[in-house]
Each structure stands twice: as structure tokens, then as C-alpha cells.
């Protein structure tokens, strides 16, 4: 107890809006987290690390991703001009690779030989397995049994890349349970192992680190839009599960008050039903998965099972910085239902010839609603976080179409 006064004088790192974030994780992992924190803060200012990161993003991941003017959607919706930030065109087909390259480089610098990761839809698992293959590292992926069943194609892709995929059978067998299992694995073996956290969640420094590596999305879109339109967007829209593509899409605009930031959550069967994953709209403050943030939980603090058609948004919490942006009113968070997302999946395919991930289609559905209410001289930048090949079979099933797989 002697240290209390001393402690009060030390600012705790990774706290957003004086409330969210922090470190709430077993002691077994704390020394390792300290190492990650130190390495991250040293390396991000290191020119050699930056050169290596830039080289991989450019020559391996296919960055910068396109900022595409969606002419057909713009004309059809008859309001704001719509630009799509095409993270679906990255190598491995989603924004996840940006963060994985960064964290895996960090792991390499820390001398780690083995990468572990959780995955929901499988995009983060595929990205991690990909980089592990490239770097010659071992890779093990934890994925809820529910998700290994609905995303079989991605399971096979990970195995093809040399990763071992563990179906997680505890709890509700989805993303939250996969994170539990990966944390447990890391607690029992951290000496040679790095946990590549896929979303902007978890204990400090993960939310900050994931944001840093994903902020390439907004840095690029800002420059690209300046080149095309010589202005800032009026609105940036991105889907939010844990919130990694959204925080990356928002990052460079947070200090531009004229830019409205909108995070689109998965409302499942509806925000006001029990079959939802709309954490910010329906959740309350809690402490889970290493962070203080907003969670869908009961009055005793037990974490609720959540639901969304999208395995990537099926998460009962949200990154602490999103909780802070919502509380401070800097960003708005809205819900889109399964039905609306599926409709957007078809809409963007037919309008623009783009099969986008069902996660991203939550953002597209919101654009469909909001663009017509805006004027023609306004601009929306909507992030397409991933491509939708992985979803084709399950959407067909949802629509009652029989596909012989």
C-alpha cells in the first residue's frame, strides 16, 4: 500500500475519455505486455522499421488501396457523392493485413517464432497465416466452432497457408470465445509466441497499436480525396465489430471537426431485440477482454451472447477508443440489421460490380440510407473493409438459394 500515492502521480497509459481502456489482464501476461508496449513505442519511430513496414505494405499488400468513386451508387441514390475506400483489394482481401504486417514485424523484432491469433469471419486468421508463411513463423488460429462452420472456406485457406486452426467449443463458440482461448494460449506460452490481436480491443497497448497500423486507411483516403476533390469528406462511414477498420478509417479525421464520423454496428435481427451485436447502442460500461469499454452484458456483469449474420461483427464489446468517441459525441454509431446488410450485399454487387464482405455491407446499407438525405456537393467516404467471396455461400443460403458446394 506504500505505493498508492506514487501511483496516483503516474498517468496510466491507454485511457480514453478518462474512463475506457486500461489493462485488465492476468498477471501472467503483464511482463509480456510491457515488452510489447516498449517494442512498439521504440520501433514506430525507428526509420528501419518504418522502411520495412512501408515496403511490405506497398510491395506485398498492394497499398495504397484505391479510393474509388462509386458513380452508379451516387447517381442512383441521388444525394452525396460516394467514394469507396477499397480495403477489399488488399492482398488477402481485407483491411486486416495492414495490422498483421505491423504486429508480425514487431514479433520478429522481439525474436518470436510463433504467431497466434483469434478470428471471427476468418479474415484476420487468414491474414495472420499469410504473414506467418511469408516470415517462416509457426501459426495457430483460434476460431469459434460456430464460425468454423459458417466460414469453412477461410478455415481451409488458413490450413493451406500452413496454420493450425483450433475450433473453440467453449461459451457461445464465436469471436469472444476465440479471444478467450487465444489469451489462455498466450498465458501458457508467451516465451516464443506473439498474440496478433486482430481488432482494436484488448489491454493497452493493443488498441493503440491496432489503430496505429490501421490508420494507413485514413491517411491514404485523405490524400486521395484531396487529389480528386481538393477537399475533406463530409462523412466517413465504416462498420464496427471490435472496431479496427473503423478506427483506422477515422484516425486521420478525428481532429477535423467538419468530418462526421459514423460507425455502423451489426443490429442482427434489430437493435431492440436480444439477437443483436449493437454494443454501443445497447451496451453498458464494463471490464472484459483486458479493457474497460462498452459491453452487451446483464445486470450482474455476465457477458451476453450476441448475434449477427456477420461473423466479423459478432462481438459483445467494442474498442475503448470507439466507446470514448461515442461518449464524447465525436462519432455517431448506428445499427444495421441482417436484412438491410444482405440487401446492401446485393445492391453494391449490382450497382458497382463489387462483391463486398457482409461486414462492410453494414456500412454500405447506412450509406444507402444517408446519402439521399445529403446534398450533391457533399462527400461520403465509405470503407469497404473486405471482399465478399467468403460470404457468397451463406448469403445464398440466407436467401433460400440452393448452391451445390
Amino acid at each position, binding site marked *: 500500500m506504500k505505493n498508492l500515492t506514487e501511483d496516483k502521480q503516474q498517468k496510466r497509459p491507454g485511457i480514453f475519455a478518462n474512463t475506457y481502456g486500461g489493462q485488465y489482464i492476468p*498477471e501472467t501476461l503483464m511482463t509480456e505486455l510491457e515488452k510489447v508496449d516498449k517494442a512498439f513505442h521504440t520501433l514506430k519511430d525507428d526509420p528501419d522499421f518504418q522502411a520495412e513496414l512501408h515496403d511490405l505494405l506497398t510491395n506485398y499488400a498492394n497499398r495504397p488501396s484505391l479510393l474509388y468513386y462509386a458513380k452508379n451508387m451516387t447517381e442512383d441514390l441521388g444525394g452525396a457523392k460516394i467514394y469507396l475506400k477499397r480495403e477489399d483489394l488488399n492482398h488477402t482481401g481485407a483491411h486486416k493485413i495492414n495490422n498483421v504486417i505491423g504486429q508480425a514485424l514487431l514479433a520478429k523484432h522481439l525474436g518470436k517464432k510463433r504467431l497466434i491469433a483469434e478470428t471471427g469471419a476468418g479474415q484476420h486468421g487468414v491474414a495472420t497465416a499469410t504473414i506467418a508463411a511469408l516470415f517462416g513463423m509457426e501459426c495457430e488460429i483460434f476460431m469459434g466452432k460456430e464460425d468454423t462452420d459458417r466460414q469453412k472456406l477461410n478455415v481451409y485457406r488458413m490450413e493451406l497457408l500452413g496454420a493450425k486452426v483450433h475450433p473453440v467449443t467453449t461459451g457461445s463458440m464465436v469471436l469472444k470465445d476465440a479471444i478467450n482461448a487465444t489469451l489462455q494460449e498466450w498465458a501458457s506460452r508467451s516465451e516464443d509466441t506473439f498474440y496478433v490481436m486482430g481488432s482494436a480491443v484488448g489491454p493497452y497497448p493493443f488498441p493503440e497499436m491496432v489503430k496505429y497500423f490501421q490508420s494507413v486507411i485514413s491517411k491514404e483516403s485523405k490524400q486521395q480525396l484531396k487529389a480528386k476533390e481538393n477537399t475533406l469528406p463530409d462523412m466517413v462511414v465504416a462498420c464496427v465489430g471490435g472496431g479496427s477498420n473503423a478506427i483506422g478509417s477515422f484516425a486521420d479525421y478525428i481532429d477535423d471537426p467538419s468530418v462526421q464520423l459514423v460507425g455502423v454496428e451489426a443490429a442482427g435481427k434489430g437493435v431492440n431485440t436480444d439477437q443483436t451485436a449493437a454494443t454501443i447502442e445497447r451496451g453498458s460500461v*464494463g471490464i472484459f477482454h483486458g479493457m474497460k469499454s462498452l459491453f452487451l452484458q446483464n445486470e450482474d456483469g455476465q457477458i451476453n451472447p450476441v448475434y449477427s449474420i456477420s461473423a466479423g461483427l459478432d462481438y459483445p464489446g467494442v474498442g475503448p477508443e470507439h466507446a470514448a468517441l461515442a461518449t464524447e459525441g465525436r462519432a455517431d454509431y448506428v445499427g444495421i440489421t441482417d436484412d438491410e446488410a444482405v440487401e446492401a450485399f446485393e445492391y453494391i454487387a449490382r450497382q458497382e460490380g463489387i462483391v463486398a464482405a457482409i461486414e462492410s455491407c453494414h456500412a454500405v446499407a447506412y450509406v444507402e440510407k444517408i446519402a439521399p438525405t445529403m446534398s450533391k456537393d457533399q462527400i461520403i467516404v465509405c470503407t469497404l473493409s473486405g471482399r465478399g467471396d467468403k460470404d457468397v455461400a451463406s448469403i445464398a443460403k440466407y436467401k433460400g438459394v440452393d448452391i451445390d458446394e
Partner: protein
Amino acid sequence: MSNLTEIFKNHKAFIPFVVADDPDFETTVDNIVALANGGADIVEVGIPFSDPIADGGVIQAADLRAFAAGVRTKTVFEIVEAARKRTDVPIVFLTYLNIVFKYGYDEFCKKCQELDVSGLVIPDMPYESREDIVPTADKYGIDIIPLIAPTSGHRVEKIAKAASGFIYVVSSLGITGERNEFFNGLKDLVAEIKHYTDVPTAIGFGVHTPEQAKTMAKIADGVIIGSAIVDIVAKKKQAAPQAVEAFTKSIRTAVDEAEAEKARV
């Protein structure tokens, strides 16, 4: 501050663990009494959590049985209240932080004081976050029992110096559950802790036989056994209390032998 530290004075402590409401209310109350009668020095009562990230399969399964019985946070307090009519054995809770946070730190600690619960073991609250609850716990005389792990390294000093009640020394990496091998530097780890504090140490995670308990009691001031007891409850269900008491007696004997052998040295 509670009286927990006193228990360890010239005495090797045995600290068994049960999950509240596993498999039901009455059996848990009987189990707490059985543990006390069997010679437990402190009973650790686990509050079930939906996502117990520090726990292995045995305790996860117990949590699920408790949820099937409809456990609420208030049920856990009612169980302790019922047990308090039959035993004054010191009790600590093992709980994930969100349970306490949602109940309200002040309300929760106040309730602990009312029920004579001496301390809280919170596996997902490291040193860095203890300030959230320690001032409130202090107000009600509740100890926040810190954990020190084989990986704690340079963190041992600050954790040990800030500790009260006792220090939970994690025997091995990973999660709770029966083990046959432990971190081989436990002796050095306990010696390092002793260098910084007089607060007693108890070793837990994986200990499940009298022989292991004796070995651990020679290294530290006490030994914690969880999964092995929860496993008895899983197998015997409502008939568990008798078996729990017999097991507790066997551990008590082993731990006392460690104390006696130390005295002879």
C-alpha cells in the same frame, strides 16, 4: 485491512476453493462448512463468470453448472450468509473484476464487510489497475490479494510491497487445472517475495495431491487447491460435502507435516 495475515503466523495455511452455487445453493453451503470442518484455514469462494479467462475446463464447467442453477451475484452473498450461520471460517472471494464493477465497488465491499468476507482475489486485475478498487476495499477492511506469476520478473517488487492479506503465487503458466509439473523456480520466487515483504505467500494453480500440497507448503506459507475440489463436486454432486471434508483432512495432514518438518529443522 483484514486479519488474514494473522492466520499464517507459525502455521502453514490450507486454502481450498469451491464455486458458488455448484451444483446448487444448499450443497455449496454444506461444502463451505465441510471445508471448515476438514481443517481449511481460509475458504475461497468462486463467483461464476461467463468468460473465466484464467480458468481451465474444470472450473469453467462448474461455472456453467452454477448458471444452470440460476446463480446471481446476490445468490453468492446469500450462500455466504447461510454459511456464516454455521461457520466463522475466514472467507475470500475469487471473482473477475466485471462482477464487482457492475455491483458497484462500494456496495460490493460493504457487503463483504457485512458478511465477514476478508478479501478478494481478482485474476484479471493486475497491479496497474488496482487503484480502481483498493481505496474502496481499504475503507471496508477488505484485502485485495495480488497474484504473482513465474513471469512477473521485475514486477515482483512493486506487487509484493503493495500487498496485503496474502500473496497468491501462481505455480505455473496458463490456466487453473490439475498439473503434475510446476514452475521450477518457485523457491526462488517465494524467496524474492520475502525479500520485499512480510505478507505471507500461498501457492496455487494445479496443486491436487497431498504430496504436492506438502511440497508447496514447505516452499510457501500456504497452499491453494481449486480444481481438485471442484472436480469432487462435479462427480459427487449433492453428496459432495462428505468427500470434500475427507479430501480436506488429507490435505490438512499433509500441510501440517510440512509445518512439523520445518519445526524440526
